[in-house]
């Protein structure tokens, strides 16, 4: 296996060595040509690539092909500075479509399906990545993009949508809206959900599956490495199969490689991308890798569900806190809806965490003791999981903003 991986990795090393930025960085550690990477150990000496490297070379500085060979650009939202721009050759686009198509097929999507793509279309890779994959597969694509929930539900019924692709938080919002819409579940043909682009928990999967009456599959990807389709679950739901066109590694917080089976930051290298090859790209996503044969018959790398991003981590009174841990607590008790918001603020010099959850008509709030009991149980469960004290604030229904794309789970006022 190592030989085969090395061949792919050298291929990418060779490609990026046409780019001055990489020539300089690799030269400093004695890698001037692909052949200098003789083993996986050598490969692990190669400096990691970060979002910062992409920003420094904004917009096209890390493209390995001249612009005349580029057929498409995508970019991440540059909320914290300049966006990160990625380019694709026609071959890249075709490869991406093939990867997504074969993964969807493994999840049970066929050309008989009607796929409603409620991921955003545009510079974000979610919408178009799924779109081309579905067309490659031969399924009917409904490119509705995100938002306009009432219309989503109407077309879902009228077009006989069988597959829904969106973020898990939007899927939950659609489920909630369906319950209030007057459209009954029996009028829908929905059976599969392809959900990703944000961290979510197993409890959230169960909730969405139960409320929409579907099988939910976790899809993973990021624009820097291609877009959605880097990995997708199979019906065995024993992790996401990483596509063979990517080589994964797991690193600890200091950037040292961790053995298979340990949790850390996922680092990806593309093996066949032309326009925008990436070497050891830090995804900021926390997961665990496994290698072997899945019960579905697939042999290769799998990654566990990403429940947290390094960037989402809050440090509260010195303790690491992830929003997904709060989600897990809420869902494990099942006494509140999984709509929540973490508000971090400071009183004097002390960090405080407030978790807002919504009450509804079924919350028995007239029985003050019952509701306070629920509030206390949730507080205790969250404190057990996080190891820090927390304040639960009950808010009115629908007062926590619903997301049509990636959910906002944290307001940090510090």
């Amino acid at each position, binding site marked *: 296996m190592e030989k085969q991986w090395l061949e792919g990795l050298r291929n990418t090393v060779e490609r990026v060595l046409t780019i001055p930025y990489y020539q300089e960085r690799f030269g400093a550690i004695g890698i001037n040509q692909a052949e200098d990477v003789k083993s996986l150990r050598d490969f692990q000496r190669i400096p990691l690539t970060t979002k910062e490297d992409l920003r420094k070379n904004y917009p096209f500085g890390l493209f390995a092909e001249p612009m005349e060979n580029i057929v498409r650009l995508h970019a991440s939202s540059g909320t914290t500075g300049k966006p990160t721009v990625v380019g694709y050759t026609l071959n890249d686009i075709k490869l991406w479509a093939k990867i997504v198509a074969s993964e969807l097929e493994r999840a049970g999507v066929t050309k008989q399906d009607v796929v409603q793509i409620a991921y955003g279309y545009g510079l974000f890779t979610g919408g178009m990545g799924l779109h081309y994959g579905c067309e490659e597969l031969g399924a009917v694509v409904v490119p509705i993009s995100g938002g306009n929930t009432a219309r989503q539900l109407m077309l879902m019924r009228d077009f006989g949508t069988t597959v829904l692709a969106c973020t898990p938080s939007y899927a939950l919002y659609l489920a909630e809206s369906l319950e209030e819409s007057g459209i009954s579940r029996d009028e829908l043909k929905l059976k599969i959900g392809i959900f990703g682009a944000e961290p979510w928990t197993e409890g959230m999967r169960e909730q969405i599956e139960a409320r929409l009456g579907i099988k939910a599959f976790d899809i993973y990807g990021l624009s820097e490495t291609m877009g959605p389709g880097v990995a997708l679950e199979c019906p065995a739901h024993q992790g996401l199969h990483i596509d063979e066109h990517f080589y994964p590694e797991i690193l600890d917080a200091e950037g040292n490689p961790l053995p298979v089976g340990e949790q850390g930051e996922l680092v990806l290298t593309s093996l066949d991308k032309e326009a925008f090859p990436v070497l050891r790209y830090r995804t900021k996503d926390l997961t665990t890798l496994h290698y072997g044969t899945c019960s579905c018959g697939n042999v290769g790398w799998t990654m566990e569900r990403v429940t947290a991003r390094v960037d989402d981590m809050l440090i509260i009174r010195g303790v690491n806190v992830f929003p997904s841990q709060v989600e897990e607590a809420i869902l494990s008790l099942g006494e509140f809806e999984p709509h929540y918001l973490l508000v971090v603020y400071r009183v004097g010099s002390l960090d405080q965490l407030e978790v807002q959850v919504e*009450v*509804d*008509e079924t*919350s*028995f*709030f*007239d*029985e*003050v003791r019952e*509701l*306070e009991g629920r*509030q206390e149980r949730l507080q205790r469960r969250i404190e057990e999981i996080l190891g820090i004290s927390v304040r*639960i*604030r*009950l*808010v*009115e*229904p*629908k*007062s926590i903003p619903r997301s049509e794309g990636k959910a906002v789970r944290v307001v940090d006022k510090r």
Partner: protein
Amino acid sequence: MLQLSIFLENAKGRLAEVISLLAELKVNLRALSLADTKDYGVLRIIVDEPEATTEKLRERKVVVSLTKVWVLKVPDRAGGLAEMLNQLVQHDVVVEYMYAFVEKEHEQAQVVIRVQDQDIMEKAMQKINLPIR
């Protein structure tokens, strides 16, 4: 008798907002009580058309639930309420909460009582024959 229980988030002006909404809906508040915990409040009201009012409030995104309560006339003399409660206690009735109001027309004092167990209360009421509204 059905009481409306309205959830009030602990936010400035929320009570005034809800009361104004009730005014806008032309709801006559016959009785009112406000329970507050450290994190939220519950506004309990008795109105003429509880079901219809509940529906209208829900349309306006107010969290409201209907709760079965008992509205009893209190004998108009010192010790009247104590007498009544003692009778209920003798029949094993447990009171969750209670609030009083005066009906203007007859200057009649009344109490709204929420009990823990409806069956016990019903049996008690058959035996002690208290004046109900």
